[in-house]
């Protein structure tokens, strides 16, 4: 907590690692500022040092490499939405990035990395990334390590820790022909989402061959319910299957959020409704 914060602007990842390693707690990494600045203005955060990573070119941009697609952590939402690579290879992510609230300003300033590291239960990016099997390159003092998002979220600390910097996100292109959907329940234009679901489905004829479903905004972190819906494989879409998905998805939410967006019973039920709608829409698109 400081009235007179210092400001550091590392030019490359090496400098960033040095600065982070040399500081005690109270340092705050800032990129687009869409998460940090409202809290500072509100008085909830008073960092000792701001580490502005917005000028590090290694954190920016989208590249298609042999091992998949890399997205720099300070790539803004607008670029994720507009990227031809993302639109053609990972359309689910491009679409989810367009569902982020807050309007044009947030889309132009906010970064995918900021959205991820805040680990906010109501945000839009994590469910899709989890469904897509994203991996992260994380910089700590001793160098970069690669960690799967799924593993990170099993960690009780739910995050990277203040000594780490999210460098880039690794994604595999989606299977050609896979159907996908991101369904977001947002009750008023100005509100946050109350429940969401990301789904990726592949079909053989009309039978489901693979299914990944993640529900978000209903518990502290998004929940991958793909295993619970494993029984859907081999089935064609039907009203009966829809009901089954809805019931099973709801049943997976053991500790629903209860907040201004709505109470726990409703959130649990909405997890089911969103999962059902997401799978239905994905099935429709598949093939």
């Amino acid at each position, binding site marked *: *907590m400081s*009235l007179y914060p210092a400001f550091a602007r590392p030019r490359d990842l090496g400098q960033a690692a040095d600065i982070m390693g040399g500081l005690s707690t109270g340092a705050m990494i800032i990129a687009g500022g869409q998460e940090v600045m409202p809290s500072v203005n*509100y*008085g909830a955060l*008073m960092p000792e040092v701001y580490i502005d990573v917005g000028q590090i070119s290694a954190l920016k941009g989208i590249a298609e490499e042999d091992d998949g697609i890399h997205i720099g952590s300070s790539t803004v939402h607008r670029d994720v939405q507009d990227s031809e690579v993302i639109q053609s290879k990972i359309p689910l992510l491009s679409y989810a990035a367009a569902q982020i609230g807050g309007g044009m300003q947030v889309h132009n300033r906010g970064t995918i990395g900021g959205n991820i590291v805040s680990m906010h239960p109501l945000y839009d990016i994590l469910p899709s990334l989890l469904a897509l099997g994203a991996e992260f390159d994380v910089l700590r003092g001793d160098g970069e390590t690669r960690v799967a998002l799924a593993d990170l979220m099993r960690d009780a600390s739910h995050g990277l820790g203040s000594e780490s910097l999210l460098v880039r996100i690794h994604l595999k292109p989606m299977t050609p022909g896979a159907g996908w959907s991101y369904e977001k*329940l947002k*009750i*008023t*234009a*100005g*509100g*946050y989402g*109350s429940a969401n679901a990301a789904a990726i489905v592949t079909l053989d004829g009309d039978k489901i061959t693979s299914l990944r479903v993640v529900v978000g905004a209903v518990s502290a972190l998004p929940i991958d319910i793909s295993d619970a819906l494993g029984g859907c494989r081999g089935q064609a879409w039907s009203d009966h299957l829809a009901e089954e998905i809805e019931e099973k998805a709801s049943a997976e939410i053991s500790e629903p959020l209860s907040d*201004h967006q*709505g*109470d726990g*019973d*409703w959130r649990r*039920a*909405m997890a089911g*409704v969103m999962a059902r709608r997401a799978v239905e829409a994905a099935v429709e698109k598949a093939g």
Partner: protein
Amino acid sequence: MGEQKSETEGYVGQSVRTIEGRAPVMGKATYTNDINFPGQLHAHILRSPHAAANIQSIDTSGAEKVAGVVRVVTGAQAAEHIDPIPHYIDPAVFGGRSASIRCLALDHVWCFGQPVAVVVAEDKRTARYAASRIVVDYEVTTPVIDSEDALKDDAPMVVPGWDANMIMQVPFGGGDVAQAFSSADRVIKTDVKVHRFSTQPIETRTYNGVYDAGTDSVTLYGTVQNPHPLRNVLSKILRMPENKIRVHAPVIGGAFGMKMHGHPEEGLVCFLSKLIGQPVKWVEDREECLLIGAREQVHSVELAVTKDGTILGLKDHYLANTGAPSSCPGWGMAFLTGLTMPGPYAVTNLDVQLSAVVTNKPGWNASRGYGKEVTALALELSVDNAARELGIDPVDMRMRNFIKKDQFPYDSPTGLIYDSGDYAGVMQKALDAIGYDEWKVKQEKAREEGRYLGIGVGFELTPEGGTLPGTFVAGYDSSTVRVAPDGSVRVLTGVTTPGSGNPTGIAQIVADELGVRLNTIEVVQGDTTTCPYGFGNSSGRSTIVGGGSAAKAAIEVREKIIKVAAALMEVDEESVSMKDGIIASGDKTIDLEEVCYACYTRAYDVGSVIEPPLEATAMFKPGLVRHTPNEKGQINPYPSYSNAAYVAISEVDVNTGEVKLLKFSVAHDCGNVINPILVEGQACGAIMFGIGAAMAENITFDENGRQLTKNFMDYVMPRIGDVPSIDLSHHDSPNPVNYKGLKGAGEAGVGGSAAAIVNSVNNALTPFGVMMTETPLTAPRVWSAIQAAKKAQPQRKVA
């Protein structure tokens, strides 16, 4: 500024662009927070984290050590210099309990967020940080949160020393209620619970106190709706005469009643500036703005009806949870709710009783609708419930019970005198605009497809221009019209604008009455030193009394100009006309500027026919008000009764509880319209309020009375994407006694539109038997109601 009027007609009745609107749109307007003075200091207020507690001790030493802190003041220290805040509407004047309200708590806090101490520092951040270093030792006591709990025998007292948690209990009504209820075919009861919601101007409250040692006087620059009355309040708090105090209200970014005074911070910054000898500013943050409550009421409406839907009698004993006592005029809203019963309906047998309860929630301030919106909600939800019970169309039930247009002026059972109206005509216009019967067909078709469309109507009667005896809620106001030697016009008026456009309406009136072009008129408002004494903005009054008084003053000035013009042209006064700044007699014309210059400079020859300067001050006091009680002790505080009908079409997603508005219509009667686009803007704004009220805006508390709603993530106001297209029509029945037949257009519509939405949702869910009468209808609540109905009626085939 654009001149959009037609050649032949005057400005009144035309949708001219606002003369004051350009600056805010361009980002050029000067708001209170844009004003800074040399040596400007900033205050941060430490507020109680508890709903009820005794203050054992306060240690300010930690804050005082922070570099940049100038002064830290506690309630006890402040009380040595300043007195309690006089009430805007003192309950004691009306026979109620009145609490002493201080700018900073003394030894006891009665709500979350109550100011306890203040830090003044060189900048805002330092003040906020230092405030976190103040240590207050609280002895926390049990709070009372709910209005029903507050009235229990063993309830703790919110105000130490009171014998009940009640400001006052007031009966309204008359007729033979017992007879009406015993002769009715049915008595249909509807419990209507209206939640706590407020208004949220984008510009929060801001005050800058500036003490001048040379004259021992203080100026308050602030977000103030009523500068002159506040000056009197400040004089009592500061122990200074009114002639040593100036209140100046710059451009206001929305007010809606919230910037009516009585707030602790108004007197506090003036006191601190005097104490320190430097200007002291305080800017409210959003969390603080959300502390100001309103509207939370519990109604139990019983309608005694015949089979065909005629209402014979109405009973409603209701509770208003007004929170902790406040000097602001908020509590009066609860009174108006009862006074406005039974709204537009010709019900003479009425037994309504208000219990204005105090609790340990933060207090209220005035909010658009001023209680009349709750009357509309209570009545309109009850009528819909009754219509459903009786199996008749809700519109038919209203049409059957409306006061007829030939019954005006109409004496209401609560003592009001309704000036004019055509309620059935207004309702019909709103129905025709939206195509009521066509939507019924669409609804049937949609149900066959498993979609649930709803059609809801609501009506709101909104008495306007209110005045209460013995308070600064005054019915009249005054304006000065000055014409300079160059012919330009300045109107100084006692009414203020919250940003609603009334300066343009007043200028249109003056342009026509004086005979000048609109773009030569400047309207000056909001300053106790330059403007004539006035009561500012409230109760839809600004154009009624500001416009009425300015018109009278303009007529006086015009006479002077005509006299001198006649002398200059050497013609008869009667032959001289003046329009659009052109003075003519027969085929002779003369420039306005030439005449005005002569009025000022030729006082001993052609100008001697008048008394210069070209200036007049006039007062306008509407009729119909009756402050002398009738035989039942009732008064009529209102000269005019605006009204409007609303129709909402919604679609409910029965899987999620989501409500989408598809279409909206409103027909509005505010008397003659000075500027249609301004009236329509206000009506659309009120519908936005109604949408927020019906569906989302909600101020909530935990079980200890700590407020949970802190920002716009929690308090979700509608965005433009939530608003359907709105069909707006005017249906004017002019007020018989007001200037131009005006009735007031700025306030109406929050309750009527909210009621239409609630009714549309219930209408959509008729197949489930759902009837929700507790606001807001959030998606989780709608979903729960559907689930409960499904469980209760499993045999019914739905969805």
